[in-house]
């Protein structure tokens, strides 16, 4: 069975401060991990995936297989980063996504 846990429901940071969203997963095979974001009044969209090893909008995430984690980080949060963030998992070459419960991030001026 595959499972994604996001322990923080709410996260509030000041503009310019670092932000880290935690994600832990459980999966017996080789996972592919994603972060999806939903801005206010917009649809859910892909932010980044571990296999691409890229930085999007200043966000990075590293897959740690030993700790089964895929935490999302940004060194300097901006107000436009305020959104709901979902961590998601799929098996390699699989189609089904399993999502965490999401973390609401509020960046205060």
């Amino acid at each position, binding site marked *: 069975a595959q499972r994604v846990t996001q322990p923080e429901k709410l996260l509030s940071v000041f503009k310019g401060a670092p932000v880290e969203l935690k994600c832990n997963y459980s999966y017996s095979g080789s996972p*592919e991990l994603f972060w999806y974001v939903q801005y206010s009044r917009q*649809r859910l*969209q892909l932010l980044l995936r571990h296999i691409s090893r890229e930085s999007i909008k200043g966000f990075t995430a590293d897959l740690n297989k030993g700790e089964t984690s895929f935490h999302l980080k940004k060194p300097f949060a901006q107000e436009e980063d305020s959104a709901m963030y979902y961590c998601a998992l799929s098996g390699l070459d*699989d*189609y089904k*996504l399993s*999502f965490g419960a999401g973390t609401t991030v509020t960046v205060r001026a």
Partner: protein
Amino acid sequence: GAGVSQSPRYKVAKRGQDVALRCDPISGHVSLFWYQQALGQGPEFLTYFQNEAQLDKSGLPSDRFFAERPEGSVSTLKIQRTQQEDSAVYLCASSLVGRSNQPQHFGDGTRLSIL
């Protein structure tokens, strides 16, 4: 096109009524997915189509839920004899092919409220 289109955006129904939710995927996308998102939760997988074939319906919560995609493009999710626990946002997503290396593009969802 404009992306995945879902209708209606909001649906209110009385308990026991049947409802039908529509999804129009991105043109050319072979794969189509339905997810259910309860309040305060992440989306949960319901069913998956590759063209017109429903390859996985393991996430459908009961036999009151039925999905189809007869011509391999537009899909309809039907819920019969609705119950209050069916209240949720129903999300549709499409991708070029059903592989994890192909991103899923989501619609705005249909918010279903059962009274």
